């Protein structure tokens, strides 16, 4: 029914390169193991998760109040606060600030929100040079791709791919694959951009209502450098990023990198509260579908996400299908519950791109019941009539059979007989039976259990 390719179709493309799939899976599993080590070494980790979850639940339950509190505090600090209902408004506001500053060169630190709003193309189309300063982001920006992961945006690329990209765009030696040298090349290239930029755009990891400040976490320090050098700082945040008090922050900084990469803490956790003398600081608070998700009780908890990426690293489907197979800014299990909120029809296959194994739920540092929400989305999509007709009708038929023991018995006999009689080549023909592309069907036994049991009891009755 849906026009866009399904997750399965996009995964099949990824899977064609079996070696790369293995490498992708193993690389992310390595990150998951680093996370495990950090978590096992923190005895109070499960209590921290609960605390974080409670704080987020509480904040979401009074989001309007906390947003107002944040705005008032930020304004008092001399920060200019803007509100954007959707992506277009966000982009227009940012462009307006850049223009008012008379600027044409912008550096950006990593922000999934600006990706979500497609800010870069908008700025470029309006004559503003925008450079992603996070190394991974810069690599994929040069390649014209979207991030494939929220923390490791270029994790789908091998060092050979990066070498190739830098050779094409930065003039490095052809065939260079040494990560150290590649990083150095990027550093030199970015330094120029940092120095030239008039405006710095950053994401926001946490916003503190009590103080009106925003907190930005990076490992490369690129946000700090960009913001320190530029005259204007624009911080773009989703409206769910709030925490009530400064003292709440410690809970989250302890969880964030442990879950993300296994580090005890992010290298740079920077607080931006007021503009430096002679400079400007803006905060753009974006809705873009968030209040709609807040209004869906079954899916509200998805707004607790702190974008650590742990659910992606642990997801056995994500690891083998790559982030681009989700075709949504936030990929992986959490993306699969955020995306139907934006467009059910376009993303109808994503909640089905899971075995519901539950590992995502168990790693999530803010205890989002991810796999339960995936299951619930399936029901919503089914009720909305979004499922392919073949599935819809076969499930109705199946239900009719399964609610009637007589029909079921007859059906089972027919199925087993069918499997014995139908030639292997037919029952295993790919277009006919996807199960059989890589698997043998079970060998049909002569007798079902119920037949065996009925026989047993008739024998013992005699």
């Amino acid at each position, binding site marked *: 029914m849906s026009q866009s390719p399904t997750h399965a179709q996009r995964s099949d493309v990824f899977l064609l390169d079996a070696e790369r799939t293995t490498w992708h*899976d193993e690389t992310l599993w390595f990150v998951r193991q680093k996370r495990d080590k950090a978590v096992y070494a923190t005895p109070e980790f499960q209590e921290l998760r609960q605390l974080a979850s409670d704080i987020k639940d509480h904040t979401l339950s009074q989001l309007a109040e906390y947003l107002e509190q944040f705005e008032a505090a930020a304004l008092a600090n001399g920060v200019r606060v803007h509100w954007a209902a959707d992506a277009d408004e966000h982009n227009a506001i940012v462009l307006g600030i850049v223009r008012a500053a008379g600027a044409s060169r912008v550096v950006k630190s990593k922000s999934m929100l600006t990706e979500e709003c497609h800010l870069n193309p908008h700025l470029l189309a309006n004559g503003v040079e925008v450079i992603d300063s996070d190394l991974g982001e810069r690599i994929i920006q040069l390649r014209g791709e979207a991030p494939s992961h929220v923390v490791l945006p270029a994790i789908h690329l091998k060092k050979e791919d990066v070498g190739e990209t830098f050779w094409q765009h930065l003039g490095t030696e052809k065939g260079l694959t040494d990560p150290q040298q590649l990083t150095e090349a990027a550093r030199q290239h970015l330094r120029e951009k940092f120095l030239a930029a008039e405006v710095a755009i950053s994401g926001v990891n946490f916003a503190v209502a009590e103080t009106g400040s925003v907190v930005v976490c990076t490992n490369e320090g690129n946000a700090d450098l960009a913001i320190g050098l530029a005259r204007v700082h624009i911080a773009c945040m989703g409206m769910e990023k709030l925490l009530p008090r400064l003292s709440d922050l410690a809970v989250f900084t302890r969880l964030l990198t442990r879950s993300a990469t296994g580090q005890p803490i992010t290298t740079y956790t920077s607080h931006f509260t007021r503009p430096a003398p002679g400079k400007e600081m803006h905060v753009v608070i974006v809705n873009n579908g968030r209040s709609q998700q807040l209004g869906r009780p079954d899916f509200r908890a998805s707004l607790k996400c702190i974008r650590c990426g742990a659910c992606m690293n642990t997801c056995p489907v994500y690891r083998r299908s790559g982030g681009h197979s989700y075709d949504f800014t936030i990929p992986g299990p959490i993306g699969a519950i955020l995306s139907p909120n934006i467009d059910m029809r376009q993303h109808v296959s994503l909640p089905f791109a899971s075995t519901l194994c539950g590992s995502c739920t168990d*790693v999530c540092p803010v205890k989002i019941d991810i796999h339960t929400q995936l*299951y619930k989305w399936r029901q919503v999509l089914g009720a909305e009539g979004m499922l392919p007709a073949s599935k819809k009708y076969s499930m109705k038929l199946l239900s009719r059979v*399964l*609610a009637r023991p007589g029909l*079921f018995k007859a059906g089972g006999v027919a199925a087993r007989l069918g499997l014995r009689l139908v030639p292997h080549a037919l029952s295993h023909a790919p277009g006919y039976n996807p*199960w059989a592309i890589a698997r043998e069907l*079970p060998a049909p036994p002569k007798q*079902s259990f119920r*037949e065996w049991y009925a026989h047993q009891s008739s024998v013992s009755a005699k």
Partner: protein
Amino acid sequence: MKVALFVPCYVDQFYPQVAIASLQLLEKLGVRAVFPAQQTCCGQPMANSGCEQDAKPVYHHFVETFQDYDYVVGPAGSCVYHVRKHFDIIDQTPAVQHVRTATVELFDFITSILGVTELPGRFPHQVGLHLSCHGQRGLHQANESEMTPVRDGQLRRLLAGLEGLTLTELDRNDECCGFGGTFCVSEAGISARMGQDRVADHLRHGTQVLTGGDMSCLMHLEGLVRRRQLPLQVRHAAEIFNQAFA
């Protein structure tokens, strides 16, 4: 104690030996379970596909079939989990509530309800345990690697208690096998790849007999093993214990 054997639809049709072994194993433990013949399925395939409304008549049929038993024991963690967790969309009559709590996975029943922590017998093989996600993370029958490095669980302990049995230590203790109900059809490529990776982990570490408490995962893995004719036997844990407990 009135105990009913709940035999999931695909076990009834394709793996009767698993249901027979479950029945006999329970008998050896002094429990006479009966098989109510009108049972069909728990409704999970439909619900899993986003059609839980269509599954309601099946849920009601399940409850009607099993409401008069103290326990409903099934050799499949996934189906048991479905009954316990997802029958919440029908009216919660006393019968529904009773069936939801009375439905128990076979080894959970043996360990938690019967209090049996060791089964006698000998099984001199290297056995690889496949933890099913619904049994492990859903029904909490084994420790999750997301929480703790300790590898422990009901089935693991019971297997380790058999004489001569060696347990395989895997690189990835509890990763999903990729079955996932209708997932294995709608995302056939990823599903197969996940299963192949699971099987490879077992082969790499010497598993001769691959086992578990959930026949659905095992059916998927067995299909992959047979396609590639790999040197692995796949057997439900009930078969192993029933054979060992002579």
